[in-house]
């Protein structure tokens, strides 16, 4: 490949355009910083998906603060009704809306810019986005109207307004359209030979995420459609045990989409921030293959205390098969930092065991966010996850605060922080706007990470004493059998509250500069200013 260094972006002479994948002339630009070809239609979708994602992150964040201040027993802010309403609102805005809009943006980026391809279908792009956006707005409206206080899991026989189920179906269908558009783009790129050999690893990771997403969304349709019909009285019964089983095919598998997307973002940021090169293609790709084959079986860990399914089913799915997926995470957890280490050592930072780590660009939020995400995901999320997913141990942890203590380390300290780190590159490279308040951006990953780690510890310790998740009244006042906890529980709930508030500050430190940059930022002419 010849290296181009065009001075005027997007205005390449036709002859050069010929060497640029399958883009018709005039529909792409060449990024002056990375040299990637950016498809203009895909770029538009990346932008609107990112903007929507950040809006839902902010909404979910406001609910998060209210929840943290309610679980902090000394504050106990919300009343019971609003606590459960906000739990529903927070779970769905964060786990579904912020994450899914972000992921569709990432998929579109990977398939077009990294494969030098045009987007398979602009119409499908709009259709998918419209479904997701309309569904998302309906969803938030019906929850805030108080018609769907059923938590994000909406276990039957709890019953929400039909709009709630319809909204989730719309979001799922829109996402599925986006995923299919991504897979179709991968297909036309191969057909048009826009690349030779195998796809780059980051794209392979995105394909992994997309495949898991297809399985996820099929389960989502499989359960939400009957439940919607039940909510409008077309069918008279949805079996609660079967509901839980199929629902977790949606609820858990979507987390594995996040893992695959996050790992891809790690590889991408490793390259963008320190020029890390993948150590061994075969090893990293095989690890993604293990995700595709085995990670979804782990959904069964949500049913470890359910009476209907057998021990054989539970142990096979959560232990034997799942450890193959854990193995994959451990492979990535080694190869990603090792690639960073090798790159930094090559640049001359060879002192001692950790000289390279000290010399890493910690002031670059793209790097610090990525590396903190890796550490939090591996050390806190990974260790607690494997432990909680063990059939026998689960019995002392199920439905306690230990569970949110675990997943705020994976999907928040891990995935969400990685996506934030990515945004420090997406805004200058795709929106082509400079970040204002750069000191705030530099500090943001540390504040957010510290807050989430504190909150996660507070949740985990309170949970170890038996404090339940999703519970407004820890003391169960007025219950027949009085509950009494070790008094230190309230200290841990205080840690939860303080950590949660700090994380909220960290979240604002991300949202404010990002919004200012996108709407009022100075245009990036030519190259992006280095972090």
């Amino acid at each position, binding site marked *: 490949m010849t290296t181009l260094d065009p001075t005027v972006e997007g205005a390449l002479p036709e002859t050069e355009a010929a060497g640029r994948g399958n883009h018709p002339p005039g529909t792409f630009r060449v990024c002056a910083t990375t*040299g990637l070809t950016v498809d203009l239609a895909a770029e538009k979708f990346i932008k609107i998906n990112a903007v929507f994602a950040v809006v839902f992150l902010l909404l979910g964040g406001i609910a998060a603060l209210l929840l943290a201040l309610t679980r902090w027993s000394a504050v106990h802010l919300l009343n019971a009704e609003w606590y459960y309403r906000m739990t529903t609102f927070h779970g769905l805005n964060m786990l579904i809306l912020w994450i899914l809009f972000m992921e569709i943006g990432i998929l579109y980026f990977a398939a077009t810019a990294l494969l030098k391809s045009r987007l398979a279908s602009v119409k499908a792009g709009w259709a998918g986005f419209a479904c997701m956006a309309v569904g998302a707005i309906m969803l938030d409206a019906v929850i805030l109207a108080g018609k769907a206080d059923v938590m994000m899991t909406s276990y039957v026989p709890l019953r929400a307004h039909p709009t709630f189920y319809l909204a989730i179906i719309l979001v799922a269908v829109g996402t599925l359209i986006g995923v299919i558009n991504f897979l179709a783009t991968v297909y036309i790129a191969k057909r048009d030979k826009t690349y030779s050999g195998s796809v780059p690893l980051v794209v392979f990771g995105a394909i992994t995420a997309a495949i898991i997403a297809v399985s996820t969304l099929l389960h989502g349709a499989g359960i939400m459609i009957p439940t919607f019909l039940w909510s409008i009285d077309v069918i008279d019964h949805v079996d609660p045990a079967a509901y839980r089983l199929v629902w977790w095919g949606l609820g858990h598998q979507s987390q594995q989409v996040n893992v695959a997307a996050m790992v891809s973002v790690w590889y991408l940021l490793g390259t963008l921030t320190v020029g890390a090169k993948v150590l061994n293609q075969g090893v990293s790709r095989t690890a993604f293959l293990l995700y595709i084959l085995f990670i979804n079986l782990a959904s069964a860990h949500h049913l470890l205390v359910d009476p209907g399914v057998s021990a054989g089913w539970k142990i096979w799915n959560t232990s034997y098969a799942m450890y193959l997926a854990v193995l994959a995470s451990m492979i990535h957890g080694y190869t990603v930092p090792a690639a960073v280490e090798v790159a930094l050592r090559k640049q001359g930072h060879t002192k001692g065991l950790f000289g390279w780590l000290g010399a890493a660009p910690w002031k670059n939020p793209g790097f610090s966010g990525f590396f903190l995400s890796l550490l939090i995901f591996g050390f806190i999320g990974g260790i607690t996850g494997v432990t909680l997913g063990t059939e026998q141990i689960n019995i002392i942890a199920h439905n306690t605060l230990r569970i949110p203590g675990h997943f705020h380390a994976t999907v928040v300290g891990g995935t969400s922080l990685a996506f934030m780190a990515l945004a420090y590159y997406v805004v200058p490279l795709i929106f082509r706007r400079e970040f204002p308040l750069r000191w705030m951006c530099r500090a943001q990953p540390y504040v957010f990470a510290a807050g989430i780690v504190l909150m996660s510890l507070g949740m985990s310790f309170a949970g170890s004493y038996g404090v339940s998740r999703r519970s407004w009244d820890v003391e169960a006042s007025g219950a027949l059998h009085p509950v009494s906890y070790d008094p230190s529980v309230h200290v841990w709930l205080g840690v939860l509250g303080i950590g949660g508030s700090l994380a909220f500050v960290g979240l604002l430190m991300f949202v404010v500069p990002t919004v200012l940059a996108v709407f009022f930022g100075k245009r990036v002419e030519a190259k992006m200013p280095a972090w």
Partner: protein
Amino acid sequence: MTKEEKSGDLIEKESEHRGDGLHHAPGTFTLTLILLVSFVVYYFANWKALADVWHVR
């Protein structure tokens, strides 16, 4: 990365670059050992906690 080498090219060329076979990353290796030890301690503590509340006779 050397400033001349564009990161986009790195990502694109990546699939041709198969890896060097051997690499030297003792720091990361140490990190993984710390992770392993933390896991063993945490996992054991949890089995112990289970044994404390769930007596098998």
